């Protein structure tokens, strides 16, 4: 709304007082305009503080009637600003507000002369007209049209005048995310935008009276002084040097000298605190990854050893009677191997992945099942469930996710010796960009699961290290320190996020976010444990002696004929010769020379319909998945159970 000047129609009256009405409510403005004009006043209207300041550049009203609550410049700020203007000292300011009483504003301090409460039009009109009347008949001298000159040129007055004249610039400066200081050549601050005030964490009045160097910590003061004196125009660099303020914040600086006689300087600050926090978290994430790679290598070798033990135990058991004195012992060996495999699975899980069979799942069901399982054995723990009803589905490796939750429950349980409560909550959430740094995950729909305990809590130092493998707060022999590390790895492998909130003495909450799936759940097929004998010829490709020995025996016991190749090249040679005999190829992924992937391609070029089962001690994520996509029929993870092996071969052959 543009400001309007309306002529009074009744020249007879000697009330040609100029009244400026300020209100962002057009109904009010229109009403006031009509009211005042009809009573002989000259009326100017403005719908916000900026418009007022513009009007005041060329007009000098006798009375200003303003509302308090307005966008941009509030009535209060407007009042103060007007009062500081040299030629506005005698203007009569009326606050017209619905909230002045509620706010308990100090009118005198604001610079207003009187406050009239808003209400219904008739009451308001009465009050306003009465007040204005009283002004008319009061002693003279109240209104003069003289423009009083600027008395002194102290920086503060200059600043305020700058404000009133450059109001539109202020709007821009206010909305910048960088802090802007304007300083004299000596370094005295004459202007600070809201962001600068925020970064400095001091009230505006204090800032405007101080030297900019005082804001900086002693360590950096000299450097900053030099920087300002040199006054070079620098290109802002996000990774450039940082300077510390007295209040502890780190900022980057950009100095822009203004080429005028007074040699003022603009100083631009950017708060780097965020950046430093992010850098620290990134470093932490990288560290964990490095340890992960190491752990993965160890797990691989270990798995092969287990495979050997498992294989021979299976072979012996295969044609042993259950009555045999050694039967039980061998069974126990199998159990221990399984435990060992679980352990390596955890380590592999930590080594970024361990995913091997991803399927659509309902986390409510998984959390519920694992909680029930866990609760059965730990009677002293009360488990509380709060599940979102229509929880989105996720695509996960079931076994791994079950492991994640069991680990979290165990962790919670261990924080509550003597019993306690565990709270489980699930929810659908949508994550936007802001939350995700520094985790490399996409914004979008996620399923959130949180596990809260009422235990002893963690201090800051513990919290930082909690996902490190082998880090444990428990005594020797009581904890492997692998639990939470593997949780971290598994969640990362699923492209999810995990974080922990805790305070010493106040329990802990682990929150997991997994990407939601569009797919629906399909009933899973049962994994058979029965051994199915078969017929046919198998080409076994693996570079590890131990694996080859055991596997060959296993396969022969199952009834298959076995050819062996120790590397990719041999495998291709043998296949070329005997492709008509060979029904299935069991191919190890990691081999020296030609790796599994290239071997597969070579075999495919000989026979595009070649049936291959990919085997590996590693996870299926990444490389393996890629090979699977190129046409491998199945994947089996070492060490393999006889039942699983026989079943997979059967499936591939049919």
């Amino acid at each position, binding site marked *: 709304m543009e400001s309007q000047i309306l002529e009074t129609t009744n020249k007879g009256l000697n009330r040609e007082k100029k009244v400026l009405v300020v209100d962002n*409510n057009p109904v*009010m403005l229109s009403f006031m305009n009509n009211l005042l004009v009809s009573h002989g006043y000259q009326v100017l209207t403005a719908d916000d503080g900026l418009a007022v300041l513009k009007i005041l550049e060329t007009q000098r009203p006798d009375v200003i009637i303003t509302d308090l*609550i307005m966008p941009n410049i509030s009535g209060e700020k407007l009042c103060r600003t007007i009062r500081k203007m040299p030629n506005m000292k005698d203007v009569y300011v009326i606050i017209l507000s*619905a909230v002045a009483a509620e706010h308990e504003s100090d009118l005198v301090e604001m610079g207003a002369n009187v406050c009239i409460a*808003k*209400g219904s039009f008739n009451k308001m009109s009465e009050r306003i007209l009465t007040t204005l009347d009283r002004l008319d008949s009061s002693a003279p001298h109240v209104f003069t049209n003289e423009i009083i000159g600027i008395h002194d040129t102290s920086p503060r007055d200059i600043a305020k005048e700058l404000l009133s004249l450059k109001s539109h610039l202020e709007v821009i400066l206010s909305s910048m995310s960088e802090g802007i200081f304007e300083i004299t050549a000596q370094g005295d601050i004459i202007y600070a935008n809201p962001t600068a005030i925020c970064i400095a964490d001091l009230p505006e009045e204090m800032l405007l009276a101080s030297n900019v160097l005082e804001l900086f910590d002693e360590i950096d003061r000299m450097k900053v002084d030099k920087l300002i004196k040199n006054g070079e125009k620098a290109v802002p660099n996000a990774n450039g040097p940082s300077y510390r303020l007295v209040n502890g914040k780190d900022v980057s600086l950009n100095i822009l000298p203004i080429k005028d006689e007074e040699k003022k300087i603009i100083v631009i600050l950017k708060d780097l605190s965020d950046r430093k926090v992010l850098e620290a978290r990134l470093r932490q994430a990288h560290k964990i990854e490095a340890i992960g790679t190491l752990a993965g290598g160890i797990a691989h070798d270990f798995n092969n050893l287990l495979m050997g033990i498992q294989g021979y135990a299976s072979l012996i058991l295969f044609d042993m009677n259950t009555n045999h004195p050694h039967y039980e012992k061998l069974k126990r060996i199998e159990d221990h191997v399984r435990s060992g495999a679980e352990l390596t699975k955890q380590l592999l899980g930590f080594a970024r992945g361990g995913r091997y069979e991803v399927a659509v799942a309902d986390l409510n069901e998984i959390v519920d099942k694992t909680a029930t399982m866990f609760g059965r054995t730990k009677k002293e723990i009360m488990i509380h469930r709060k599940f979102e009803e229509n929880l989105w589905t996720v695509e996960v490796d079931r076994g791994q996710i079950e492991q994640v939750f069991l680990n979290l429950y165990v962790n919670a349980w261990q924080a509550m010796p003597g019993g306690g409560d565990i709270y489980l909550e699930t929810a659908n959430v949508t994550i936007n960009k802001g939350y995700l740094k520094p985790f490399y995950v996409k914004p979008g729909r996620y399923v959130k699961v949180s596990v809260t305990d009422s235990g002893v809590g963690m201090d800051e130092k513990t919290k930082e290290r909690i996902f490190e493998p082998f880090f444990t707060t428990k005594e020797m022999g009581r904890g492997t320190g692998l639990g939470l590390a593997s949780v971290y790895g598994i969640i990362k492998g699923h492209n999810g996020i995990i974080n922990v909130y805790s305070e010493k003495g106040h329990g802990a909450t682990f929150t997991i976010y997994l990407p939601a799936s569009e797919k629906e759940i399909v009933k899973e097929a049962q994994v058979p444990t029965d051994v199915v004998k078969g017929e046919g010829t198998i080409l076994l490709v693996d570079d590890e002696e131990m694996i080859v020995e055991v596997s060959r025996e296993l396969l022969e016991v199952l009834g298959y004929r076995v050819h062996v190749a120790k590397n990719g090249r041999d495998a291709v040679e043998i296949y070329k010769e005997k492709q008509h005999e060979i029904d299935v190829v069991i191919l190890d992924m990691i081999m020296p020379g030609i790796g599994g992937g290239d071997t597969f391609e070579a075999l495919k070029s000989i026979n595009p319909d070649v049936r291959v089962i990919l085997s590996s001690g590693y996870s299926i994520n990444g490389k393996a998945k890629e090979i699977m996509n190129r046409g491998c029929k199945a994947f089996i993870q070492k060490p393999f159970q006889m039942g699983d092996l026989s079943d997979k071969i059967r499936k591939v052959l049919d």
Partner: protein
Amino acid sequence: MGSSKEELINLRQMAENVGLEEKEYLSLLVLFIEMSICHLNELKSDILKGDSRKVYETIHTIRGAAENLGIPEMSEIAKAMELKARKDVLEGAEEARETLVEKLAYLTEVSHLRYN
């Protein structure tokens, strides 16, 4: 909604309540409706964004104008919203906003009848 004769009386009554001539009241009412339509639209996204400061300022203006024109059905709701928003509470704000939109629609119909 009642006969048009009832509407006539309503407007006259409302104008009288605030001490204005019916013609002036009506023109102010139209102004109020135009302004409120814009503001209520803006409010929708401000509420979604959770910007309680902006919600407070906007609803304050609507409340003020509604009080000026003696429309308690709207000013009461706006006032409740305003008090909550000032304390950073936006619960129920969307429902209140929708109610205000309904009431405004009714007012629009009423004023339309006469303005033509």
